[in-house]
């Protein structure tokens, strides 16, 4: 039964060209005030900072010529898409970046604003807006050096639109960092059954397995929308220690670093029939 799922799943039908799914909004509204409890519902996201922040930081440091270890991300403009309560925006801000955090759930933005307000340094460096990615595209063309979309793409309605928008608001040669969950039997068993229903690592109903994104699909969409994928790394959560680590396999969680090409973004027409089939398939369901 599960193996049938893998080959015949379609992305849910969406009437809008927006990447925002209104059902997802409702799910997160209920948990808006729980973001900053380090041992609460979002504990796993808090501890994910231990690997995703160094990943972003070290990648950007290795690409830049001047090294200020006291302020590693100083001068870098980052867009945090789906910032939630600001769990990732704040460490990036502390490292010196100017961060714009956007999230469609107003309660999340309110929580994030309130949390940063007590720290004058963060209050200046981070700006939050209740908005979808599409809504800011017009005023933000080629504005950002970096986009981070962490634990977001498995919630969006139309992934290709999302990626196109990322390309539009990124400067040429800008970096895109994505962390998300693969769509495999393993991720159903561990990511949904165990994580949500049995161990409660993730609040129940947070994820829908059908919307998980295999790295091959993500890579294909990125490459055909003007991005060059630089690295794909597997991530693993250990519920006993409450900590994340990098692993070889991308069967569960994984992270991607991609760079927007220097020229203006163009879709690449591919020759292989297999790819063409898939394009038709997703075009038919994107709505």
């Amino acid at each position, binding site marked *: 039964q599960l193996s049938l799922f893998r080959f015949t799943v379609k992305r849910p039908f969406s009437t809008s060209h927006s990447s925002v799914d209104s059902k997802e909004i409702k799910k997160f509204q209920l948990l808006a005030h729980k973001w*900053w409890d*380090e*041992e609460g519902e979002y504990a796993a996201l808090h501890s994910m*900072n*231990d690997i995703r922040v160094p990943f972003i930081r070290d990648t950007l440091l290795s690409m830049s010529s001047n090294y200020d270890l006291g302020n590693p991300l100083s001068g870098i403009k980052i867009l945090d898409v789906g910032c939630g309560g600001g769990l990732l925006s704040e460490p990036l801000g502390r490292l010196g970046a100017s961060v714009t955090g956007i999230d469609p759930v107003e309660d999340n933005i309110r929580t994030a604003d309130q949390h940063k307000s007590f720290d004058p340094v963060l209050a200046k460096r981070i700006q939050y807006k209740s908005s979808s990615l599409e809504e800011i595209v017009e005023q933000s063309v080629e504005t950002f050096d970096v986009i981070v979309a962490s634990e977001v793409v498995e919630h969006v309605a139309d992934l290709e639109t999302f990626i196109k928008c990322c390309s539009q608001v990124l400067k040429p040669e800008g970096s895109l960092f994505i962390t998300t969950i693969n769509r495999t039997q393993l991720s159903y068993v561990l990511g949904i059954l165990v994580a949500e229903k049995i161990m409660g690592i993730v609040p129940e109903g947070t994820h829908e397995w059908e919307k998980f994104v295999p790295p091959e699909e993500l890579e294909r969409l990125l490459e055909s929308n003007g991005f060059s994928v630089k690295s794909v790394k597997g991530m693993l959560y250990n519920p006993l220690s*409450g900590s994340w680590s990098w692993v070889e396999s991308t069967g569960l969680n994984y992270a991607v670093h991609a760079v927007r090409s220097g020229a203006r973004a163009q879709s690449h027409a591919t020759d292989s029939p297999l790819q063409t089939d898939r394009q038709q398939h997703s075009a038919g369901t994107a709505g």
Partner: protein
Amino acid sequence: SSAAMAALRGRALLAPLAARLRAGPRAPLCSAASAPPLYDVVVSGGGMVGSAMAAVLGHDIHFHDKKIALLEAGPRKEYDHMPDSYSNRVSSISPGSATLLSSCGAWDHICSLRLKPFRRMQVWDACSEAMIVFEKDDLDDMGYIVENDVIMSALTKQLDAVADRVEVFYRSKAVGYTWPLPSHSCDTSPWVQVELADGRRLQTKLLIGADGHNSVVRKEAEIKNIEHQYDQSAVVATLHLAEATDNNVAWQRFLPTGPIALLPLSDTASSLVWSTSHDHASELLAMDEESFVDSINSAFWSNINHSDFIDTAGAMFRSAISLLRPSGTAVRQLPPSVAKVDPESRAMFPLGMGHATEYVQHRVALIGDAAHRVHPLAGQGVNLGFGDIACLAHHLSAAAFNGNDLGSLKHLLKFETERQRHNVSLIAATDVLKRLYSTTLAPLVLLRTWGLQATNALPPVKVRI
């Protein structure tokens, strides 16, 4: 979260919550404009350990854009020039501590002021001839005897060097602390509020308590402290030797009343640390200088505490060892004899032991004597504090480079676990040694005699110590 995970973190949840359930002012709701100045780290207590903590953080590359404050109740001391005479308060600095002081640039200043390296430590029992000698096979120094004033002078200089990051508040005693609620339920300030005696207020993301064994930070945080006053005081003095010598050995003899130690300061001077009963300590302070010197020499040289039984038993054990391990007994050196004591240099202070059950809470960490207090017999006191600093600075530096909230229990607990693991065994062992050596009862003397001789003969055990 499942109950299991909640239980694992229960300690972390309960501690700050419990503190909040007691009476205490809640942090006021402040607008950013009128709020007291916010620091990343406030160190309370400007002694050797507090000053070193602030200096080490101030010199850390990941703290370049952070704001640190050091609160010291006393006035700023000027150390423009060291007096010719030695101060009677000295510390035995281990090589590890020297490395830490080097990392913030203070060790160079200490070397250019004055210090005495020693190569060897001889420790022996007044009730037998059991002896243990510590020395390094290579020609490295085992440790350094440094006056506390010299250390403070070096640290003050290094704090001045990072004045753009570290603000030192002299004559600023902290009189009250207000603790924040755990961050997720916040519409009040999430920071620690500090109130100074003159009414000024500060806020901080992390409060480090380095305010000594009667720590106010520890008491206000309601951290339980296991403490015990020893029935002993330490008498300190600066002594002049009968004749100049290489003086690179630290001597300690265990008398029934307590250990007497001679720590080298120069070729002609040594520092005395004599732990003894309160009454005897008062007598030593009251007697004239000649009698005082006689008491010291007698303490090191007299065999009055020997008994034939113990001597014979000890000698038998020694020959047994030399059969099994011919090189297992070191040459016994003779301690120097004392000629004079510096006038005005005699002082005494009471001794005790203490250990805080927790070193950390949300946004709070204890270091140095605030966390643990030991008997001077092991010469470890300030080295434990410097070890705390090295460990805490390491975790804070990593946290800063990861963009973490500096007051987060996550890395503070790592510091606590590492240091408690290291400190508890040493503090317990020191306490046991103190008690073991405070007796003339034959069985216990034999036990420690044979134990000491065996330890002396076994290189692996000695190296670990």
